[in-house]
């Protein structure tokens, strides 16, 4: 399945990209996506899938837009 992944803030520089489409095997989880883009799984404070928060073990679906963010308590 194809997932669009968008990284926020410093995670962009950690992974080396800002946004791209990634192909993952079916039933992959948000955690698998984080591992795939080579971000330490402790770094994201919130991951959203199509605008809604998900956990690392939540399953993704083809066409999802996943945003991985470090934001904790805002400006």
């Amino acid at each position, binding site marked *: 399945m194809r997932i669009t992944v968008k990284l926020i803030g410093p995670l962009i520089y950690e992974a080396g990209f800002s946004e791209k489409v990634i192909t993952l095997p079916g039933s992959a989880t948000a955690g698998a996506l984080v591992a795939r883009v080579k971000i330490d799984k402790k770094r994201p404070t*919130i991951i959203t899938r199509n605008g809604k928060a998900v956990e690392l073990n939540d399953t993704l679906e083809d066409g999802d837009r996943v*945003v991985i963010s470090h934001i904790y308590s805002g400006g």
Partner: protein
Amino acid sequence: MNGWTGNILRVNLTAKTYKKETFSEEFARTWVGGRGFAVKILYDELKPGIDPLGPENKLVVALGPIAGIPAPNTGKAVVAAKSPLTGFYGDGNLGTRVSEQLRKAGYDAMIIEGKAEGPTMLYIEDDKVEFLPAGEVWGKGTYATNDWIYARYGKGVGVLNIGQGGENMVRYAVVRSLEGRAGGRPGIGAVMGSKLLKAIVVKGTRPIPQADPQAMKALGFGDLKTVGQTDKKTGWSIQGTTAVLAWCNEVAGLPVRNFRKTHHADAWKIDGERLNAARVATYGCPNCTMKCGITIHDREGRESELDYENVGLLGSNLEIFDLDQVGSLNYLCDEYGIDTMSAGCTLSFYADAIDHGIVAGDFKFGDAERAKELLGLAARREGKLGNLLADGSLRMAREFGHNSEAYAMQVKGLDVAAYNCKFIPGQALAFGVAAIGAHHREAWIITFELKNTTRDSYGPEKAAKVIELQRIRGGMFEFIVACRFPWIELGWPLDNYPKYFNTVTGLNWTLDDMWKVADRIYALIKLHYIREFPQASRKGDYPPAVWFDPSNADTEGPIAGKCLDMDKYDQLLQHYYDQRGYDERGIPTRVLLNKLGLSTEAAAAGKYAKLNQEFR
């Protein structure tokens, strides 16, 4: 009294007099400093109903026990007065060397009274205070004024100054410091201007009293280094606060078109990535090792220092997606000394009112050049339009009528920070019950709300989170006086702050002791409020009405068709009151006030408004 100098400097501009006053250890332990000192002093010394722009208002500059001590992000000062924007207690904090210099001069706070005969600069050096003419820079912006001051005294002094916005009493004029931006969103700069006080310059040469200076030195410098290393390791300051913009755009929380929309396809053009790529310099406050002032060249080639709030409210909220133009608007606000956030909300309200046919005008969303002209009109209070803009969005709405107040994006008169809560009920509550109006520095719970609860819930856990963060952010950080960023952005442990506090004071406080002071401060700000507005009801804690309007719901995206529910918001508000111990109007009860040691203050407030014994 270790940790405090024990002195307050009182200056009277009318009489050109000053005196050093002492305060008791009990006062220090009850109010600690910063916001605590300011709220107590202004409550005791200001009569309700006074004109905030009259000589009877007082300006307080207040520091805390760790202010100016080398430790993570302690280069901050609190500025406060009765607000000309909201009509009750208002304050703000800003990075400035005044933090260290005033403490070294021997003071924990200063109170400025009266009104000068002509434009004046106060020069404070230890026990000496000079009232100097400032006519040469009256009418000039904050950058030119700062240069003029540095040319006279060098760059080591602490400076607070105002621009044309403060001079002309724009109701959202701020106090500026080139060592750390601006503070005092509720018009504290206008209060300075009303006193013809152009600038305050401070130089101190004495040590700050501390229980264990050697231990504090080792602890503070070590932690400054560690915070800096953590920042580098995590990469936080590559984008600083501006990283939030792209995230808000993704989760439908960005202000776009006067908060009518929550995201925009062009938002990427002004996001943290673009800002970092355009960076020409980075600035930070004193005692900071995670500098967040990303500076770019604006459209006119000037350096403009941006953060998220500036970009959100002068950029996406005005549908201006040229980064250098956002930089220009930000530069002008800084030069005029007006709040970028209220300026953004005021302009967006004006464009929205024109868009809805409420008033005739030539300003449209996206028109950066006209926005620049309008900022100038406001700062100079030029013509009818300039005066309207200078009074802020709420007063404009009341002038325009036609229910336009529903989309003046403010609470209690203070404009909403750059988080669009059209469908984020807990953060809407945080804005509703923020002590001085819709400020973001007190409680910010959006990550918690999206991750740990459901977005559409209005449960008591959201009220509890707001209170928890008010105690930390609007409480502790504002009265010990330090920047919250090491904690909120890098996860620097909160326990470090009582450690710093105890090392300088010799006390043995825990975080729970900090929360008690925080609750006392929040209750006293509420008493300020009801003393000025005795008929106040819970409606004063409602966020802007447009967030409850189904016709304003997004038509696409993550929250399509959603908006806040008023009945449910009211329940959430009641959860907050119940947990706080406030009555159904949102006013602290006598039982709570007594528990917080505020029975005298309650008696004073009781002359103006009814206080209930208990809630429910």
